[in-house]
């Protein structure tokens, strides 16, 4: 789960990491009230997860109440690379003497947290890594030992941090590490980490990704919302406990097991189709889960055909067939369905489907055959049926 900048900064503040004072706002009035409370000049920042939003007009400095009003009005509701701005973060303007970079990544390959530090902040770190790899100091932390002061000193000296900042930076990295582990983060990135004229360190931006599997330990984080990134189908699927990812094409896909569903998307693409979604109905799917899944898939207006690819292990094909029959009774789909059932109770499943003789539902014997068939059928679906 990716946090918005201000959600990341609030998380930082809880762990004692210095951030500029600020307030979130969802309306122009709220933004102006926030700006008055913070004082001028202040900065109005669009809350969307897009790099380079400043260049796209999503960050503006307000020197007065009138400017705060004007900027908030321009930014709220604005479209930044397809993401609508629902919220702004109004924060005190910071004076910048130098821009550093700090991050902690959950490094899967090394199986350890990776801390990176650079005095070349304020730009894309991948670009720095390419052009000037020496400018980035990095090291892995033993997950059982945790962060030690020497880690910070090593990083600071290797990165060439000004002498007076080595000790404060070591302390700041310790707090970042505490936040990384304590909040079950997969990524924490501060870019830029600024040095003020008073020689203080401050996180001017915050990029935080949290582990969705650890939310049971963090009910506050679980409640955080990002309306600009929420897709109606993804939201609907989440409420129903289904794993769904919108992909933008016109062929709805349902399968059981993440690997099989990914494979199904690939096979549909090879057959010339464009998948509308990833939907893993999971192991042991019962009829009601299938009904819920069909509703989510069909609520996407682009969908012109649906492919069911089931290999029954724990999932029983007769349960899937029952769910489909029930779904057809409830929602009367106007688009073609192709169903491939293999594995546990597949014969019974196919028998149930044959008996029910559902309109515009086709049974195929193989995954490849099913993919080809749905691509053909969906291409012929008239737009008013979608």
């Amino acid at each position, binding site marked *: 789960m990716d946090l918005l900048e201000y959600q990341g900064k609030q998380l930082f503040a809880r762990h004692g990491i210095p951030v500029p004072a600020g307030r979130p706002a969802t309306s122009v009035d709220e933004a102006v009230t926030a700006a008055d409370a913070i004082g001028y000049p202040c900065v109005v920042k669009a809350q969307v997860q897009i790099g380079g939003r400043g260049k796209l007009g999503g960050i503006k400095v307000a020197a007065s109440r009138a400017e705060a009003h004007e900027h908030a009005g321009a930014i709220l509701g604005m479209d930044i690379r397809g993401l609508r701005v629902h919220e702004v973060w109004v924060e005190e303007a910071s004076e910048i003497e130098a821009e550093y970079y700090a991050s902690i990544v959950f490094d899967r390959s090394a199986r350890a947290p990776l801390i990176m530090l650079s005095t070349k902040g304020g730009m894309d770190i991948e670009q720095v890594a390419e052009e000037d790899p020496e400018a980035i100091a990095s090291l892995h932390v033993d997950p059982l030992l945790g962060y030690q002061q020497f880690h910070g000193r090593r990083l600071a000296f290797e990165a060439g941090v000004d002498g007076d900042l080595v000790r404060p930076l070591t302390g700041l990295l310790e707090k970042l590490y505490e936040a990384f582990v304590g909040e079950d983060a997969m990524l924490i990135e501060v870019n830029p980490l600024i040095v003020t004229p008073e020689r203080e360190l401050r996180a001017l931006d915050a990029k935080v990704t949290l582990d969705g599997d650890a939310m049971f330990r963090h009910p506050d984080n679980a409640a955080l919302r990002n309306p600009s990134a929420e897709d109606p189908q993804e939201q609907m699927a989440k409420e129903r406990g289904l794993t769904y*990812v919108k992909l933008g094409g016109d062929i709805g896909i349902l399968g059981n097991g993440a690997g099989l569903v990914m494979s199904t998307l690939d096979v549909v693409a090879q057959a010339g189709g464009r998948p509308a979604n990833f939907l893993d109905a999971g192991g042991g799917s019962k009829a009601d889960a299938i009904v819920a899944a069909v509703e989510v898939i069909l609520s996407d207006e682009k969908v012109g055909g649906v492919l069911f690819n089931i290999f029954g*292990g724990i999932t029983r094909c007769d349960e899937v067939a029952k769910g489909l029959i029930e779904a057809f009774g409830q929602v009367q789909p106007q688009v073609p369905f192709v169903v491939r059932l293999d594995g*546990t109770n597949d014969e019974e499943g196919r028998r149930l489907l044959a008996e029910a003789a559902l309109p515009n539902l086709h049974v195929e014997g193989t995954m490849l055959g099913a993919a080809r068939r749905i691509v053909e059928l969906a291409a012929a679906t008239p737009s008013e049926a979608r």
Partner: protein
Amino acid sequence: MSILVDGDTRLCVSGITGREGTFHALNNKRYGTNVVSGVTPGKGGQSVEGVPVFDTFHEAVADTGANTAMIFVPARFAADSIIEAADAGIPTIVAITEGIPAHDELRVYTQLKRSSGVRLIGPNCPGVLSPGKANVGIIPADFFKEGNVGVVSRSGTLTYQIGNELAQGGFGNSSIVGIGGDPVPGSSFIDVLELFEADPETELVVMSGEIGGSAEEEAAEFIADNVSKPVVGYIAGFTAPPGKTMGHAGAIVSGSKGTAQAKAEALEAVGVRVGRTPTEVSEIVVEILDG
């Protein structure tokens, strides 16, 4: 021969009194796996259809000589249960549980690497099946028969799909190992490839990967230097967009890293043939073993 589980397996199931735990423990027992005990704290002294239940792994090991553990407890208790099994001296641990926090997995992984001789398969995996010998996990054993193709995979149902196509082509399996779809699996492709390489019954290995991380690229390097047997690859997720988790916690393309394309190319660069569909994988296997 086979790898990881066989006729010598003495299985203890953590979470045996739960609905899923009971169902699969008994399923494994019916298949012929020697299920010797179960663990559920507070339910020691009970039994699940003749299988004795203990409060701790230490008691289960002392009383029943368990040498393999299967973890079936909910995600928030699973890391603790894995460490407990290792602490009780169980050398092979198979964790089925899905949804364990990544930081917990990291601590478990690091701890187990330090306690010599403990091997963890999973978590978030379907388990290990050695057809005709033992089944530890949730793999539907009916689709597989004894044979000489080893399978190692990050995905469960995709394994069944590939195994089923192989069976239709007339081939059986030495062992089928699900290493799981999480960011920090206890065993990697490399760990399992090493076992298959040393297993005299295995003639060929099918390796089924997916987007996310770099385990397939690392396996490619290992294969080039250490595997003499033919390996046939499959990678799922060519059409997955970056930044989206595709069902498995570990299946995510991060920026330009972890793409299916890069993984397939890394494998092909060391001479591994990569099927573009599960059907093509089984066709390549048939071609190699019949040819």
